[in-house]
């Protein structure tokens, strides 16, 4: 009875909406229900009338302009052919933004990382009953179901069979490599399922997103290992990108009560992206340099690589330290025979950094002294571009044992940032930055005053940065004026805004 009245109310509302009938005509059609219908229809009309508000014309015009401009720019960038420039540019920003989260996550995930991978995997998938069921299906009457469940989506009749089949595969993937490959495949499968649900117009609930997080989480723990090859790491980098794109696209399909899971899945995907890039960078170092683990092995010197002849561009001329002392002598590589990355074992300890053994890293015209692995520091590179074409990383990262101090150097211009972990947060210090033709460095006294011993290490690193002038392919005419050396100025170590020096540069 109520359903019929709801139908008639709606029929009248639709008729009023389309202009097919007037209120009086609607009431005349249903005279026995007219008394109930009339006040409701009048209320609906009042609501409609009241809520038919036009946006302010000034707002509409301004927002339209912003929307169209943003749309044109963003889409054209997204659709540009070749590797996405935004990805390359964002690598540094993502690393810096994720640095804090990585350390926190690493601390909370330590117990898991210490477990053998297969044990962690079993903990995540304890579906013993389902395993038994699938084995029975394999052995007996369910062959058809198993073989046709591969495309099943969550909520479909054969989906549980598909998942149980996956668990069987995981159980029988005995080697680390096999499990890793399967982890990547299954994380991709969960993402395909989400895309599939969205394609069919089905809502995406929290369990689906949690499944994606579960598969992705197993990758996160694994990414800390040092035995990744570039192929697998590249797959995970691309998978993380796909995750971010798909999750953004399907956002409208995500159920209201699953918004938190969506946000968590996006954050996890971002974390995977950063860690996978690092794993990829490390793998690339390993494969290209032939080193066993990482490039900071102080007793190893890399042979020049014939393929690595590209020279990173630089706008910075050699500088002196703020105290006027000359930079440590740096090798002057021949441009046509430049090595990709060379790590030369060490110079003696410097005052204020007693006990530290220093390695010199040379990348083309750029060189810098960094604390060695033997002193508890680790050197890695980030950002080789998306097509593996760059001969050297865009960023050098030097991290201490506890991950509480991170020094990041851009070898193209020598920009150096120091991140110190205190009270749950990473604090950023700009230690050296090139602005136009000037180089700004933090004030050594201020740094030592604030940070004691650690400041000595960071200061030594930044004062040892040397970027040789670019080679001149053609003879320079004798009457060409030589550009003056870049000025070096000191700025306060704290309270700096990026790119905004605290003091006027000193000529």
């Amino acid at each position, binding site marked *: 009875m*109520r*359903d019929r009245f*709801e*139908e008639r*109310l*709606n029929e009248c509302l*639709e008729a*009023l*909406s*389309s*202009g097919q009938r*007037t*209120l009086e005509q609607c009431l005349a059609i249903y005279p026995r229900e007219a008394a109930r219908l009339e006040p*409701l229809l*009048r*209320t*609906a*009309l*009042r*609501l*409609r*009338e*009241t*809520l*038919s*508000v*036009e*946006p*302010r014309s000034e*707002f*509409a015009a301004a*927002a*339209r302009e*912003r*929307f*169209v*401009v*943003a*749309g*044109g720019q*963003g*889409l*054209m960038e*997204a*659709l540009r052919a070749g590797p996405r420039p935004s990805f390359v540019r964002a690598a540094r920003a993502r690393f810096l933004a994720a640095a804090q989260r990585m350390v926190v996550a690493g601390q909370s995930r330590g117990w898991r990382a210490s477990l053998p991978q297969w044990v962690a995997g079993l903990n995540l998938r304890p579906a013993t009953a389902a395993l038994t069921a699938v084995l029975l299906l394999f052995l007996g009457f369910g062959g058809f179901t198993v073989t046709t469940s591969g495309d099943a989506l969550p909520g479909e009749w054969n989906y549980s069979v598909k998942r149980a089949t996956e668990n069987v595969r995981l159980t029988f993937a005995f080697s680390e490599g096999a499990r890793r490959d399967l982890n990547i495949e299954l994380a991709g499968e969960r993402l395909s399922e989400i895309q599939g649900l*969205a*394609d*069919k*117009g089905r*809502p995406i609930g929290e369990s689906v997103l949690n499944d994606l997080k579960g598969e992705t989480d197993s990758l996160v723990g694994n990414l800390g290992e040092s035995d990744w090859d570039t192929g697998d790491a590249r797959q995970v980098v691309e998978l993380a990108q796909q995750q971010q794109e*798909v999750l*953004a*696209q399907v*956002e*409208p*399909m*995500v*159920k*209201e009560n699953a*918004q938190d899971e969506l946000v968590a899945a996006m954050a996890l995907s971002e974390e995977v992206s950063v860690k996978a890039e690092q794993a990829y960078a490390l793998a690339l170092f390993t494969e290209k340099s032939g080193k066993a683990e990482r490039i900071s092995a102080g007793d190893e010197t890399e042979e020049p690589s014939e393929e690595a002849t590209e020279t990173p561009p630089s706008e910075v001329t050699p500088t002196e330290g703020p105290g006027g002392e000359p930079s440590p002598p740096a090798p002057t590589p021949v441009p046509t025979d430049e090595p990709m990355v060379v790590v030369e074992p060490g110079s003696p300890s410097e005052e204020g950094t007693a006990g530290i053994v220093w390695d010199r890293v040379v990348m083309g015209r750029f060189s810098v002294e960094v604390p060695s692995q033997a002193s508890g520091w680790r050197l890695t590179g980030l950002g080789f571009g998306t097509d593996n074409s760059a001969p050297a990383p865009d960023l050098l990262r030097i991290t201490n044992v506890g991950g509480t101090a991170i020094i990041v150097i851009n070898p193209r211009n020598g920009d150096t940032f120091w991140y110190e972990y205190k009270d749950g947060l990473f604090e950023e210090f700009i230690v050296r930055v090139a602005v136009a033709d000037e180089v700004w460095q933090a004030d050594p006294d201020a740094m030592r005053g604030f940070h004691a011993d650690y400041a000595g290490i960071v200061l030594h690193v930044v004062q040892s940065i040397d970027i040789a002038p670019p080679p001149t392919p053609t003879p320079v005419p004798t009457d060409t004026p030589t550009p003056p050396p870049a000025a070096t100025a000191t700025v306060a170590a704290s309270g700096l805004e990026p790119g905004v020096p605290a003091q006027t540069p000193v000529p």
Partner: protein
Amino acid sequence: MEFGSVAAPVSAEVEQETIERARRGDQQALADIYDWYLPRIYRYVLARVGNVIEAEDLTEDVFLRMLGGIAGYRMRNIPFSAWLFRIAHNHVVSYFRKSGARGTPGILDEQIADARPGPASMVETRLTVEEVVRATHDLPEAQREVIALRFAVGLSVAETAQVLGKREGNVKALQHKAVVRLQRVLAVKPERWAAEGSG
């Protein structure tokens, strides 16, 4: 007496072709989509939050979010309008979650309310958006959604069902309950508010 037009501004074919161009970054196509949907998205958001300033900010966010997803939008089993209103719905829900608010009316531009033409024959008492949002404040969330989509935006029951992921019968039932309740509330509250205001 006409209830209002909810007809699509263009044919489905034209809309689809425009969306395809927008996905390729065609600025005119983006501008067309914006022009077609801005008033309805704005009305929906205003009906939910009851605050002009917030409604403008959230409306702009909805369109920027749409930009982020339109390259991946395909003509699935969900029409573009339903897809866009889901973005709006999620964004409003997210706003409520972050702000802790639930459609509490704030500053309303009196000029907007007063500028609306209101045929005396259609309404017993002139309402403002603020009064309507206040009246809907105590409704369950699903009923508030239906009121906003049906009466502020002008979506059909079928379209509303698609946006909310509900069956059409369910939407009709929610619509019935909401209108019944609002009929009672609005019959009393405006007079009482007016009395409170004059006192």
